[in-house]
């Protein structure tokens, strides 16, 4: 049985005692199961409301002293005196009071999100955004005015340049190709590591923490990946010459035509 708080029990016992005409102690004992329940010899004091004025109800209800006010139905205005203060929704039910259950005091709705500190998008977000777009535009126009995009001789399938290099973002992969079998380095690593693992990462890393100090392994993993990819790319761009042999850019020059006009810029 639910642990009923003492004050509620007493209040309930008082109500029972009043309804049955017994003492509170007796009622309390009955409710706790320590005494035989008092046989209800008389109906509790209720108002029996009927549409017909003052009939004898099915049970001998001694409490029907006042003619029942017909609340809901617009009965012919014979007995209707004034609007009753409380409208009973089911007048044929005899109302008694007893303690059925105790609802523990707690909120019925659980707040799912805490209120967060917010600011208006205009102007607090859109102004910095606008400034960065303008800065980027200025930077791009300046860069394009200074640096000429490379344009070598017309494409000729019969003349293979040595070395033939991919765009810079693939040069890390091209560098890997010189170590391992092309099926591993050229296809399986970019496909499995670069695409599948990368997409699945949030489903693998189930640690809900976002603070760097609580996700050291993930941070380390990504930083190693970043460093590895960066080193391979730099090697591929700057340190590989004819025949994909190791060269030093400060001795042998840079063998990457995409950078040609950057270097010869006057």
């Amino acid at each position, binding site marked *: 049985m639910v642990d009923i708080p003492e004050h509620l029990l007493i209040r309930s016992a008082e109500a029972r005692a009043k309804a049955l005409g017994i003492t509170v102690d007796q009622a309390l004992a009955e409710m706790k199961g320590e005494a035989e329940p008092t046989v209800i010899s008389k109906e509790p004091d209720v108002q029996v409301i009927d549409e017909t004025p003052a009939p004898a109800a099915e049970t001998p209800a001694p409490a029907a002293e006042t003619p029942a006010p017909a609340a809901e139905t617009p009965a012919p205005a014979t007995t209707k005196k004034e609007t009753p203060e409380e409208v009973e929704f089911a007048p044929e039910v005899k109302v008694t009071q007893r303690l059925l259950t105790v609802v523990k005091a707690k909120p019925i709705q659980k707040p799912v999100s805490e209120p967060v500190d917010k600011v208006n998008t205009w102007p607090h977000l859109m102004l910095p955004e606008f400034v*960065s777009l303008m800065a980027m535009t200025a930077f791009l126009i300046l860069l394009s005015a200074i640096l000429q995009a490379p344009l070598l001789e*017309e494409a000729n399938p019969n003349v293979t340049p040595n070395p033939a290099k991919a765009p810079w973002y693939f040069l890390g992969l091209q560098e890997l190709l010189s170590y391992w079998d092309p*099926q591993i380095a050229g296809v399986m690593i970019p496909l499995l590591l670069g695409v599948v693992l990368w997409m699945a990462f949030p489903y693998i890393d189930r640690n809900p923490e976002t603070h760097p100090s609580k996700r050291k392994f993930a941070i380390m993993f990504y930083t190693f990946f970043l460093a590895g990819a960066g080193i391979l790319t730099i090697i591929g761009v700057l340190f590989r010459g004819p025949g994909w042999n190791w060269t030093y850019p400060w001795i042998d020059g840079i063998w990457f035509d995409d950078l040609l006009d950057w270097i010869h810029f006057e």
Partner: protein
Amino acid sequence: MQKLSFRDKIKEARINASDSFRGGKLMSSIFRPGSPFRKGYVDSPRNRSYVVMNNVLYHLHPVKVKRHGVRLSYTLCLGGLSFFLFIVLTITGIWLMFYFRPTELAYVDIQNLQTSIAFGSLVRNMHRWGAHLMVLVVFLHMSRVFYHGAYKAPREFNWVIGVILLLLTLLLSFTGYLLPWDQLAIWAVTVGGNMAGYTPVIGAQAKFGLFAGLEATTATLLRFYVLHVLFLPFIIVIFMAVHFWRVRKDGGISGPL
């Protein structure tokens, strides 16, 4: 009653005219109710909301954002800059299409663009460096998201879309790399296409499909051109729409840490 000077009369007439123009039928039909273009802008919380709500572009943003998210040091604006570079590349790219034919004449077209067309060289440079920059910025954006742990629940799926967007960016850059049709272009694409040839089981087919033949020819040029100017932008815009939509649906910016 004080007599107005001529100058004041002009001023009053100007204010009246601009008020009746702003409140007139034409402006009312163009701008939505509450728009600052209809009733002027006085700084108030209500009008601050209207600025965002009544503009289709600004409407990418919610009316309010988390305070820590507007700090430049939090995002470095990398996602916004990626999108902005995409728009710059679209505009310059459309401009370049007027002067470019994806045939044997491609190389001559690029030469003419650089030498005979006003701003041709500048726009081509902007398109090329902008493309390199976009690859870099998208990659940095991904790194920023990773270091903030912003891919965690409920944003897992948006990370997946982000990886797809990175791949599409690389593909866009790679297909554009061939278009100048010089030695740099054809051999870089040959290296890339040969890598695709090492795919297990379907290697030969993948290479053939990419090159539209056994090696890089003008057929490859046409194929890469269509991929570059129509197919891939079409796909990437769809994924971008989902990406931006999910940013808002997943509760805006992540954090604070």
